[in-house]
């Protein structure tokens, strides 16, 4: 049995869902209100969680004696100088953030995303054993990788052998983009299905009709 607060949450969720779905018909004031509330709520949520994260990972350790925590906290505060006439000061924390970000990333990029990928493209030929399908699958990946890379060779005109290879690479890329787009479409469908599930099973059946699903 739902508590009154849960019931209220379900009603609010159902009304907002229908308000957002009303956009399928055409843009209207109800949709606009729901959209603005969702954006505002999301922004407020983000701010609150960021403040909580700074407290948990910065302020509290500082209070417990981790004096060095003062450095990231000060750098974070300097970001707010953007809002003042000393906006240039914010370049220092930005510089540190970019430097640390690139430093953290670069270390493993060669092994993980270049050498490792090349190795897997080669070993992929016999990864599933010596069955014809596995070999064919590995071969497709290998050809796909080589021809796609050849498409990005811009120092030579795409004629002759390179032209053929680049065109095959283009086909592989189009297939890849098609897969991604199909996946995106599936995501949108899932969102719709989940909303319908909620509206039918929770809102209509449980709350309005009182049926236990």
């Amino acid at each position, binding site marked *: 049995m739902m508590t009154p607060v849960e019931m209220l949450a379900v009603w609010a969720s159902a009304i907002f869902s229908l308000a957002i779905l009303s956009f*399928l*018909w055409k843009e209207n004031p109800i949709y606009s209100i729901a959209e603005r509330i969702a954006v505002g709520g*999301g922004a407020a*949520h*983000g701010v609150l*969680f*960021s403040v*909580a*994260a*700074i407290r*948990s*990972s910065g302020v*509290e*350790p500082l209070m*417990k004696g981790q004096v060095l925590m003062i450095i990231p906290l000060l750098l974070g505060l300097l970001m707010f100088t953007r809002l003042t006439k000393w906006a240039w000061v914010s370049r220092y924390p930005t510089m540190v953030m970019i430097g*640390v*970000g690139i430093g*953290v*990333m670069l*270390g*493993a*990029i060669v*092994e*993980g*995303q270049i050498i*490792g*990928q090349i*190795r*897997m493209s080669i*070993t992929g030929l016999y*990864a599933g054993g010596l069955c014809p399908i596995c070999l064919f699958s590995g071969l497709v990946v290998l050809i796909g990788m080589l021809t796609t890379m050849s498409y990005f060779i811009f120092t030579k005109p795409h004629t002759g052998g390179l032209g053929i290879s680049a065109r095959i690479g283009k086909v592989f890329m189009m297939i*890849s983009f098609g*897969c*991604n*787009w*199909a*996946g*995106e*479409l*599936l*995501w949108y*469908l*899932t*969102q*719709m*299905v*989940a*909303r*319908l*599930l909620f509206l*039918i*099973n929770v809102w209509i059946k449980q709350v309005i009709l009182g049926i236990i699903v």
Partner: protein
Amino acid sequence: MAEETIWEKLGTINYKWLYVISIIAMIYPILSPMGLPVTISEPVRGFKDTIDSLPEGAVVIWQEGGGGSVYDEIRPAMVAAWKVLMSRPIRVIAWSDTSEGPVILVDTVHKIDPEENYGKVYGEDYVILGYLPGDETATASVATNIRKSFSTDYFGKSIEGMTVFDGVETGKDVDLIIQIYTGCYNYDWIVRQWVVPLGTKTLGITMACCGPMLAPYYPEMCQGYLSGTAGGTELEILGGVLGEGAVVSDAKNLGLFPLMLFIVFGNIAFLYKKYVKKEAR
């Protein structure tokens, strides 16, 4: 004026009909579940096998990267994965690299109810830490020392004395990392911060559109992954932990048919207009 052919009419059909037909197709399996057949893919088998192969007391890091807008897409996979994890005598330490992550994580764990259904104890068998900003830098921080990255859990309780952290100091003490990511390239963080420097086993849960970005890492740098609701449904069936995935998959599969038909008809209409009619003129 020449009369319009069927293909020309199809090309100008009102798109609202597509919505109506798709919604009807999606509602039908919700009202009357169909149980369409599901094939278990290799990455999903890898996902389950990797969890099954963990020794007793193993430490799993759950890196939550989802948010409200994608929760519907990854929820069946998250729920099924938590059910499989909780059925094993292992420890799970969960944290989030997105601000909305803790909210959906708590909702998922609430659905599982580890205390009631699996006899697990919060703080001993699993813990939900909060949000740590910084994306890949935060991932690196957790890989270096998770205990120094957080002072409290998501609920504000100090993590000091929580036995779930016993023997967990650095990333080397972690047996498996599961990343839930919805920015399609975020799995690269795991490869760069966990797989290459530490050689940790990894699993991924993501949306259907991000699955292809994870595939190149499988099986060497990612031992298994669940892509979208389909991946969740497959794990539900493979792990014997049935949930909402099957219903969602049925409705999604049926809802796809009208869209596919409209795409095919739209293309025929376009090509007819471009070539056949041009030739006739």
